[in-house]
């Protein structure tokens, strides 16, 4: 095939172009740098001030300045001493130990009681009983069985439920009934959650599963607070968000997968299409901008045009080469992201599915990372292709590489302004404007767009029209062009 030979030559020229290779290296360097910076910034840990030496020192000095025997000081003294005792107890257990979370909830209360007995009441019997409770508490902690506490919590909820149900039966007061029903529903949710914790064996702590449990609780509780028959727009939105939180939390709990952790190799790879969108546009412009104009500027176009190929074939080969160059660039960025993500966050998370919430169907969608990347690239394709084709057309028609670089980049920069103005004023006629049509990702996965006149079909049609239109003009122009003196 004669076209094969043309394309082969164009690719040969492209990959021997220094500027192309340099741009690719810079792009990959950028990918590496962005990954590195983002992993560094996520590793900055936020030490809990409460446990810090500074805080302990502060508490100690405050306590020293107070006199526990003075009536005016004693209340503050008890409070600070209890805090200090709690902190000291917390620090007995290693970072992230489940005990720490129990102590924060229950320990402080026990110390408060003990210290109150010791410094305020000064009653030996009370001191002894609170001390006993405290010792028992510490002993249970040391036994290292978090389920004891979970079962305590569960028993508490069950008790509340029985009591509340009894109270509901007993009362006729309507407003009271509403309150009681609310309490009952909330407690039932808490019971469900604690049962989940026990079933799925999730110790207390700050793991994502704990976050999921609390998200689940807050989502469910939030739903209780709405009057479903009478909802404002804002409330409808909140309900959607709550449903999403619940669905995602449930998924995490069921599958033991952390879907909200952005600091994993898989999550970084997943968003490769959108994170580096500008890079792909730049690669496309880089390849296309000099594809034809440089041949004109150097005069080499003449040697090309006196070979046995029609001009249409030559331009097609050149455009095809642009596409291959772009694809090559994209694959390089993806490969670079894959390796960098693996190095920085570990390769272990690759292969986990991508989980998305579809607002339209109110369901979670699960798919492989590869498929997700494919779809998001498809969504970004009109933007990348339109800008690349614009650059290619300018390169062909104006034979000026600088124009072919600058105009598409300006278009890209202005598109952000144009789009935000269009959305702000909801201008209907702008729905045909290319920059409003070229992002298809806004329509995928049940996303809701902020511009009410656009639709996926319209965007695809308009993008295709611009795309084909530019190419037609380009081909006609190139076919008729007189090769002037160079």
């Amino acid at each position, binding site marked *: 095939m004669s076209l094969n030979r043309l394309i082969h030559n164009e690719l*040969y020229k492209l990959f*021997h172009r220094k500027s192309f290779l340099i741009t690719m290296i810079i792009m990959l360097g950028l990918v590496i740098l962005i990954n590195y910076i983002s992993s560094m910034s996520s590793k900055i840990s936020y030490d809990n001030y409460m446990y810090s030496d500074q805080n302990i020192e502060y508490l100690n000095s405050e306590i020293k300045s107070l006199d526990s025997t003075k009536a005016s000081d004693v209340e503050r003294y008890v409070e600070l001493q209890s805090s200090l005792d709690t902190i000291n107890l917390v620090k007995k257990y290693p970072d992230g130990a489940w005990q720490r979370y129990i102590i924060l909830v229950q320990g402080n209360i026990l110390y408060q009681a003990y210290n109150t007995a010791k410094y305020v009441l000064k009653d030996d019997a009370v001191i002894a009983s609170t001390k006993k409770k405290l010792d028992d508490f510490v002993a249970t902690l040391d036994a290292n069985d978090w389920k004891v506490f979970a079962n305590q919590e569960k028993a508490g909820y069950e008790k509340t439920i029985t009591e509340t149900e009894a109270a509901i039966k007993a009362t006729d007061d309507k407003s009271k009934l509403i309150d009681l029903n609310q309490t009952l529903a909330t407690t039932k949710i808490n019971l469900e959650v604690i049962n989940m914790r026990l079933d799925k064996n999730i110790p207390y702590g700050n793991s994502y599963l704990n976050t999921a449990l609390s998200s689940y609780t807050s989502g469910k509780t939030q739903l209780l607070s709405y009057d479903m028959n009478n909802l404002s727009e804002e409330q409808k939105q909140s309900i959607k968000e709550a449903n999403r939180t619940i669905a995602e939390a449930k998924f995490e709990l069921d599958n033991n997968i952390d879907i909200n952790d952005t600091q994993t190799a898989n999550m970084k790879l997943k968003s490769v299409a959108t994170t580096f969108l500008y890079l792909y546009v730049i690669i496309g412009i880089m390849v296309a901008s000099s594809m034809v104009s440089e041949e004109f500027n150097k005069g*080499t176009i003449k040697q090309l045009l*006196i*070979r*046995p190929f029609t001009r249409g074939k030559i331009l097609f080969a050149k455009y095809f080469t642009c596409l291959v160059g772009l694809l090559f660039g994209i694959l390089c960025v993806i490969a670079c992201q894959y390796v960098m993500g693996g190095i920085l966050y570990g390769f272990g998370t690759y292969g986990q599915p991508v989980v998305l919430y579809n607002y339209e169907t109110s369901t979670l969608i699960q798919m492989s990372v590869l498929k997700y990347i494919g779809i998001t690239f498809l969504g970004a394709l009109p933007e990348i292709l339109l800008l690349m084709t614009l650059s290619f057309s300018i390169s062909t028609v104006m034979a000026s590489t600088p124009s072919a670089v600058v105009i598409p980049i300006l278009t890209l920069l202005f598109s952000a302004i144009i789009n935000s103005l269009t959305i702000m004023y909801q201008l209907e006629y702008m729905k045909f404007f290319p920059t409003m049509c070229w992002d298809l990702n806004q329509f995928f996965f049940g996303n809701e767009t902020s511009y009410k006149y656009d639709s996926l079909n319209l965007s695809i049609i308009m993008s295709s029209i611009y795309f084909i239109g530019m190419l037609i003009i380009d081909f006609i122009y190139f076919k008729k062009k*007189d*090769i002037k003196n160079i």
Partner: protein
Amino acid sequence: MKEPIVKCEHLNKHFGKKQILKDVSFNMYPGDILGFIGPNGAGKTTTIKLILGLQSIDSGHVSINGYDIKKDFEKAISQVGAIVESPDLYMNLTGYQNLKLIANYYHDVTDENLMKIVKVVGLEKRINDKVSKYSLGMRQRLGIAQALINSPSVLILDEPTNGLDPEGIKELRTLLVQLAHEYQMAIFISSHNLSELESFCTKVVIIRSGSIIETTDIKSLKQKHELPTYELELSTKRGLEDILVSYDYEVKEGNIIQLDATKNDIKNIIRMLVEGGIDIYYCKQVEMSLEEAFLKKTGGNVIE
């Protein structure tokens, strides 16, 4: 009579209102070496671009090997090799890579052929250097190699002697004559410098201001200037007109005159001058080149 391999019929070309070519017609036959002569701006390169399909033809036809350049571009151009204006090379590639790129456009060019061509143009020692390191002469040679890659039956060279040293020009002549003789290649060479071409061209087409003013083969051209030209330096020009009343002469500068005459005539002229009281410092026969002969015809290097 053989069929012409290149036929240009009544070519016209405008750029805006300016007419660049007016009714340009000529034919080339296999084995022809056609010198296309004209001053700068006469339309030489434009004619070449029209032949090669690089520019559209306003009216007229070009056919190569019987194929119309407009309608059957791919077939017409496949038998052509050319340099237009100057060699067009990718500076960042080596000479060999440049040739390989061109070779890739044809399915029957082997690496052996390629190296043969490299030897023919005398670049075998530097062929793997980057073109950016080449001298102008070497680029010109590489350009010729490019034009020869597809073993064309028509070779079109636009000012190919630019940048070549005298040795290179001599080699080029030898090469072109060889190509024309051995392969019956039709070679089209444009130049503003006729003296470079006269020794080996078989045909001359002279263009001026976009019009062909002379199409002839070199033999008949030379016959027109059979009479040798003599140059004489005289002591004075006074009375000259009366003495040389029956001869055409031309005053070059000062007291130097030139005239075309037979041996017999010049003998008589010298005697008449001396007898007429005009002394002669010297008398010599000058070689009147075709170029000088044509400068009269083309009106010098006037760019319009």
